[in-house]
């Protein structure tokens, strides 16, 4: 799909917004000179102009209306009569990708704090043999569910051991991929809900720090913010960032599900002078991160690098990757044992993960999906005896409580979501994150588009989303007969044996 649609909407709405004012004046003149009947039009246009002015300048809860005015209302109208229309004409509620309407609607409702119960029955296709959670005959009382608490860095007896108190964390999204308002709304929301947020590989955190939430600082393969001019680790800069009060953990990004084996990419359309400065890069070309850290060329050097960051940063430090070859991972684990350097956490990102920009072939065809990769990593760590020395995070389309509980059952200790939070911010899945034209002002640096994203309002939605998910986790845990997610295991997951992506199917060698 070309971007012309939104560019056109932008231009069309500008014309329309001016157009109604002109029409109002024109009918006023006609009413005076020709016939008073024209004033029926004058009044109608006048009211429309007033309404439009309110939408554009007087309200903050509808980003599209704030940015485009009354033309965008057509979208709401279509949405309100949408179910009938779509059923006959367009995609069904469960067809859209990456997230279908049913999934998105759940996030929107949670974020807005509205009841998300549904009636009559599931809209999902049970014949397709989806993974389900197994409940117990003997649910646990909800007041017996233990508060969520995962300690990271405990096995190394770190003074800086961090306690995660919310099972859902905001996954890495850089300032650069996201605009300033989006970063601040997410950070403020995280603080309101007591959750932790990953900075992404956008260099020195700036807007994140303004809101005072707990942060995981990510070191991308280009090491923005902590790089020497050649792209090696600058230990002084890392120590300075790790010394900030808000920075609680460090994540070394080895790879990412949407583009495993390929470095990050920030299109030049999205590079502002400020971004260039925070990252330490030129402005007039796409910023392409290398595919791997210069220091990490094999298992030995990778583990040594982890040890170095742990030592310099003094914080709980982990790695993030998308699994490709289980044998390579096992070798990496053996090397960890040999050097006695174990990351404090591992983030497993599924190939289905999102991105601001990536080549399509990588998005579609490279890497293992989360529900296959996660149990492999979990078991490999168990077999080598390292499982108790670190915690596991998972990410990849985990935007609703059911999927999140599945991940927690398959080995994760806490889950990350990126796009779930974008939806909570009002993302309409326009699929333009790479073009600086995001119509709801999230993945753009254009001031006029960001205007629609009110930080205070959206921060509350982010917080609501986290709270609602946490609430549902407790309900599900109780139904599954477990008093804490730490007691969840594969037994809590029903996976039809012939499902296309069964996490419990035969382990690939």
């Amino acid at each position, binding site marked *: 799909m070309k971007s012309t649609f939104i560019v056109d909407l932008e231009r069309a709405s500008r014309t329309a917004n001016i157009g109604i004012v002109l029409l109002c004046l024109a009918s006023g003149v006609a009413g*005076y000179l020709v*016939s008073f009947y024209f004033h029926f039009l004058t*009044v*109608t246009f006048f*009211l429309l102009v007033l309404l439009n002015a309110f939408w554009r300048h007087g309200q903050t809860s509808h980003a599209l209306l704030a940015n485009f005015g009354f033309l965008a209302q057509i979208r709401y109208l279509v949405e*309100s009569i949408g179910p009938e229309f779509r059923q006959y004409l367009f995609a069904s509620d469960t067809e859209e990708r990456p997230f279908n309407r049913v999934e998105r609607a759940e996030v929107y409702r949670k974020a807005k704090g509205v009841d998300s119960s549904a009636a009559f029955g599931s809209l999902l296709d049970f014949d397709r043999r989806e993974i389900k959670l197994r409940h117990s005959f003997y649910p646990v009382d909800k007041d017996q569910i233990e508060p969520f608490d995962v300690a990271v860095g405990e096995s190394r007896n770190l003074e800086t051991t961090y306690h995660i108190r919310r099972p859902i964390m905001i996954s890495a999204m850089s300032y650069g991929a996201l605009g300033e308002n989006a970063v601040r709304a997410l950070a403020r929301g995280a603080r309101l809900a007591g959750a932790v947020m990953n900075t992404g590989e956008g260099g020195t955190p700036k807007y994140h720090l303004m809101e005072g939430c707990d942060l995981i600082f990510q070191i991308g393969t280009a090491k923005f913010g902590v790089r020497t001019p050649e792209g090696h680790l600058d230990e002084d800069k890392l120590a300075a960032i790790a010394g900030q009060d808000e920075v609680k953990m460090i994540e070394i990004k080895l790879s990412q599900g949407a583009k495993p084996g390929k470095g990050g990419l920030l299109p030049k359309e999205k590079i502002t002078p400020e971004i260039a400065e925070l990252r330490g890069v030129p402005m007039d070309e796409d910023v392409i991160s290398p595919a791997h850290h210069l220091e990490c060329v094999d298992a030995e050097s990778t583990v040594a690098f982890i040890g170095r960051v742990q030592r310099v940063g003094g914080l709980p430090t982990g790695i993030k990757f998308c699994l490709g070859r289980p044998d390579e991972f096992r070798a990496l684990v053996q090397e960890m044992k040999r050097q006695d350097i174990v990351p404090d956490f591992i983030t497993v990102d599924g190939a289905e993960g999102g991105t601001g920009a990536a080549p399509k072939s990588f998005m579609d065809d490279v890497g293992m999906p989360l529900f296959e990769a996660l149990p492999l990593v979990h078991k490999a760590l168990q077999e080598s005896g390292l499982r108790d020395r670190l915690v596991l995070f998972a990410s990849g389309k985990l935007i609703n409580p059911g999927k999140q509980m599945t991940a927690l059952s398959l080995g994760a200790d806490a889950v990350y979501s990126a796009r779930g939070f974008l939806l909570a911010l009002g993302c309409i899945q326009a699929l333009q994150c790479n073009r600086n034209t995001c119509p709801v002002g999230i993945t753009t640096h254009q001031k006029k588009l960001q205007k629609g994203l009110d930080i205070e309002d959206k921060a509350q939605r982010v917080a609501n989303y986290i709270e609602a998910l946490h609430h549902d986790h407790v309900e599900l845990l109780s139904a599954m007969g477990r008093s804490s997610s730490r007691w969840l295991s594969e037994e809590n997951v029903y996976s039809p044996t012939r499902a296309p992506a069964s996490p419990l199917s035969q382990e690939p060698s």
Partner: protein
Amino acid sequence: MRHPKLTRTAQGVAAMFLLIASVQKFIGDPGSIEIFSSLEMEPTGRYLIAVIELVAALLLLSPLAALGSLLVVGVMCGAIIAHVTQLGLVVNDDGGGLVGMLVVVLLCAGYVLISRRKELPLVGDTL
């Protein structure tokens, strides 16, 4: 809605004035005829506005008051345009009484519209 009583009072006041105005137009009150003549809308325009006013008044007293108030605001804006551009503020030596009434009705309807804006069909959700 922040002040339900005030809102309902405003609905009542506006509806009452509108009913009176509408009836005057229907029965062909000389003042009305003169006004619509000078606007060159006699008699079609007079009956048209009378019907709209009647409908608006009834809506104001029904669960669709939000829609009614929108209609009233529209009609009153039109009336004000008429007075400002062609009729003048004082008609038939009433010392501005008619315009004063217009403003009262506009204020009442405007208040109802604002406090009931969320009930408007199609756009209410966004206001």
